[in-house]
């Protein structure tokens, strides 16, 4: 009886630790990304500037907006991960797009 109770308690403890662990991993992954994109939430002007720039580059390049994953917002432009989704493996390319003229530059690591 005691053994069964112990087994149940350890089962619960393992589950609890795993739940907390998964939550912490999610926070570690998401917080830096949310921090990088905070101007989108805090500044209406940044929001419209980003939207305008991405739309301009999508129009000229024929890219789909759903293939542009916003990664960072900088003083003079945005960093995006560009994916052209199709059947089979997709190439993920990091690109820097300038606000001034929607020029596309490679990312500098």
């Amino acid at each position, binding site marked *: 009886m005691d053994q069964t109770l112990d087994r149940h308690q350890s089962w619960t403890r393992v589950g609890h630790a795993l*739940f907390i662990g998964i*939550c912490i991993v999610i926070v570690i992954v998401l917080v830096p990304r*949310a921090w990088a*994109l905070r101007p989108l939430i805090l500044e209406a002007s940044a929001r419209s500037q980003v939207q305008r720039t991405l739309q301009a580059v999508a*129009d*000229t390049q024929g890219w789909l907006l759903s293939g542009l994953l916003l990664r960072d917002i900088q003083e003079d432009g945005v960093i995006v991960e560009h994916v*052209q989704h199709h059947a089979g493996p997709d190439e993920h390319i990091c690109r820097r797009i300038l606000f001034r003229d929607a020029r596309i530059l490679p990312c500098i690591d």
Partner: protein
Amino acid sequence: MYRLIAIIGLQCYAVALALMQMRIGVRTDEAKYVLDIPYPHPPFARFILNILDGWTYHELFWRIVLATIVVQAAWFIADMVRAERPLRRAAVMLAWLGSAAVLYQAGTIMMAPLTAIQGLMFVWLLLSDRTVDRYAPWIAMFWLASLFTAYQAVLFGPLVLALFLRMDIPWKRVALYVGIPVILLALYTLTNPLAAASMLSHAEKDAAQTLVERLLQTSWIAVLGGSGVLTLVGVLGIVYRPRFGLIVSLLLVFLYVFLSRYDYYAVLFTPLFIAGCVRLLRALPHDALAVGMGVPISTMVLASQFIVLPTVSAVPATMALIEAQEGKGDVLIAGSFGHEWQFGSSWPIRRYHSSLLVHAQAVICLSPCEEMMQQPRWTHVESAPVELWLKERP
């Protein structure tokens, strides 16, 4: 032995439903998930669906897997009424299996049927007379996975809260298990502006409709969710033997569909109607057979009179013609198009613009593109199901 025959029979049903959807082809929402395009839903399920991207039987595999999950979930319903006679248990299973929502959505690669199954699991746990306290953190992980499968899972939040409140665990732990996954989902949304923008555009879709039109359409989707008979029995069961989680979840699903109307949300109602049905039949077990028989019959009536299947996709035939040419370069599409074109294509897809023709091998015109008539080295393919232009090989 009887159970094994039933499992095999159900599996045949699941495969038939998957093949029915396979015949229609991949739709834009399905393509979004199998290609792991990051909107509108969080990444958990679409990441898994994308693992086999590029495999010839990718679509068929997931259709059969998802149809199997939805159909074989009937065993959980049987467990909810396990005290009843076998024939009555079978009747309640039939109410799930025969509902219009399950029939038309089981073989789709969509988030709605997956969320419905997650909802059904919460209903099963809530209505169970077993003690599930020791599984609390595992249920919390399932709740977290449900939320990171699709935003709609939040509609079943009241069921989850009711389930944890029933357990003999401290309230702080209830808050942790129910609340933290919701906070993490909100945090995810902040990192994915496309998801937020997509949700807003969905909500504005039917903004011009009157209140009465919206109410009627939402009610119609609720009817599809239970083929009318299960809808009625389910609502009666929830009202007759009220339970906080069930009532609030039902209201939330209704409100959600009211604000953002899509026929495929019908299946979100089904687990709640099953819960109502189970609660009603526990009081009136003799009516189980009538419900079990009534649901498939009403589904047949709805199917013959009101339900129209989507038209067969033009994507595979068009892409086969492009592939036959063995060319290289992008495929350009003029006009509004869905993600199914990306799913069907082995090459990158771009929106048509005459300046991009130099690097393209094909142009698909879903809206008129008169400029193509003047382009040298481009041939119009008469046999294509849509207007198709291929670049002549040098």
